[in-house]
């Protein structure tokens, strides 16, 4: 349980980090909070030849309110998101989920950018950012580009990041007025990775008819699973229990792809997805109706 030897760099500017990354390419790994990478190195599942520690680069950790949303720096620790009043006000879905992610000691170190770049399909932030239609700024020596969450998560631990790129920040749009949100998940032990989960957002018009809905599942596929058909089905409908049941049925039977493992069978995960989806939509609807 000891990591293989590696060459260690601790650049103090983003430019230096990017130039190291360009130089070492596939041999290098970025070290952010280390809460996913170091366990993998301890197990020697990961054996990067070069480690580029970005913890000493100032100005990569911030949560700023902006026109239409909130901008989150890659090195923002989970703990900072957990206690941020700006996050609470502008991205309550993320704010309220933070305490569910791992344990206090892990949240001290784990980062926003690290969780997204790691792209564990059981992690919350990839699903939440997909639900909220966030986008990420990827930078390299070649330049920068913004990639929407829906095009960022490509598969199991696989993202749109090229080997010379760093995820520098994310922009999370604020939900419109009369919107509600919810994250529902089931874990074997509180704070563990979820067996199955779902995030929902809904926006209602003045007659409580659903204008927009978004359902994204976690831990039941190789990436955040956006249930597009179920989400679309809800548009233009009042969110009655029948409508909610139909959407949950469609999403959980046709739009997810759960796997079997020692913790749960695929069938059980599908069952959980169905039940959790109904709960999430109910709660999101109630929250939306609670707003004027």
């Amino acid at each position, binding site marked *: 349980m*000891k990591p293989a030897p590696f060459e*260690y760099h601790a650049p103090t500017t983003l430019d230096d980090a990017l130039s190291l990354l360009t130089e070492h390419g596939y041999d290098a790994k970025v070290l952010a909070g280390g809460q996913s990478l170091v366990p993998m*190195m301890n197990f020697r599942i990961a054996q990067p030849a070069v480690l580029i520690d970005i913890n000493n680069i100032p100005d990569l950790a911030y949560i700023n309110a902006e026109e239409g949303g909130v901008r989150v720096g890659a090195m923002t620790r989970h703990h900072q998101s957990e206690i941020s009043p700006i996050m609470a006000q502008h991205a309550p879905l993320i704010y309220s989920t933070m305490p569910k992610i791992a344990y206090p000691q892990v949240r*001290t170190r784990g980062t926003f950018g690290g969780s997204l770049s790691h792209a564990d399909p059981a992690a919350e932030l990839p699903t939440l950012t997909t639900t909220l239609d966030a986008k990420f700024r990827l930078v390299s020596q070649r330049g920068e580009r913004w990639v929407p969450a829906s095009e960022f998560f490509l598969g199991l631990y696989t993202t749109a990041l090229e080997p010379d790129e760093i995820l520098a920040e994310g922009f999370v749009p604020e939900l419109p007025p009369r919107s509600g949100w919810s994250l529902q998940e089931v874990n074997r032990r509180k704070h563990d990775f979820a067996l199955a989960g779902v995030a929902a957002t809904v926006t209602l018009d003045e007659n409580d008819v659903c204008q927009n809905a978004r359902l994204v599942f976690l831990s039941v596929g190789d990436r955040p699973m956006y249930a597009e058909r179920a989400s679309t089905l809800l548009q233009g409908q009042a969110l009655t229990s029948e409508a909610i049941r139909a959407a949950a049925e469609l999403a959980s039977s046709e739009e997810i792809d759960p796997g079997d493992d020692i913790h749960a069978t695929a069938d059980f995960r599908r069952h959980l997805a169905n039940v959790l989806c109904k709960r999430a939509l109910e709660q999101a609807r109630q929250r939306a109706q609670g707003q004027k």
Partner: protein
Amino acid sequence: MEATNQKIELTVTVNGTRYEREIEPRMLLSDFLRHEIGLTGTHVGCEHGVCGACSVLMDDQPVRSCLMFAVQTQGHEITTVEGLGTMDALSPVQQAFHEAHGLQCGFCTPGILTTVTAFLETNPDPSEEEAREAISGNLCRCTGYQHIVDAVLLAAKKKQAAG
């Protein structure tokens, strides 16, 4: 891929004492504390972040020492269980664990004491639910947790009484 022999000069303050060592970058903070400077109070259980036995404070915040490389503590301050109190003068948290029987074999205890010490600084008057949340990242195979929760709440009282 060629193995590297890189060594790094590390200067770090642990429990108020400055240490300088030349180490390989791959050395985990937990191993540095135990093997390089002989502070074996920090225990190592799982080495992948799950059990919490290795929890220490970095700049007063709880971290897993098995998930950090020692070189990352350059210029920082680390507090281990040895830094909380002495045999003659236990810290309020240590004293509370003693009085409330918050431990049996003691393997999980150093990680819990450091974590709870930091927790009570930010949350001096926790509810039972908050106390349970605070220790959610620390596995104990002996106590069944009830006495640990009692000890956390007692520690809060002791600290308040002490002002």
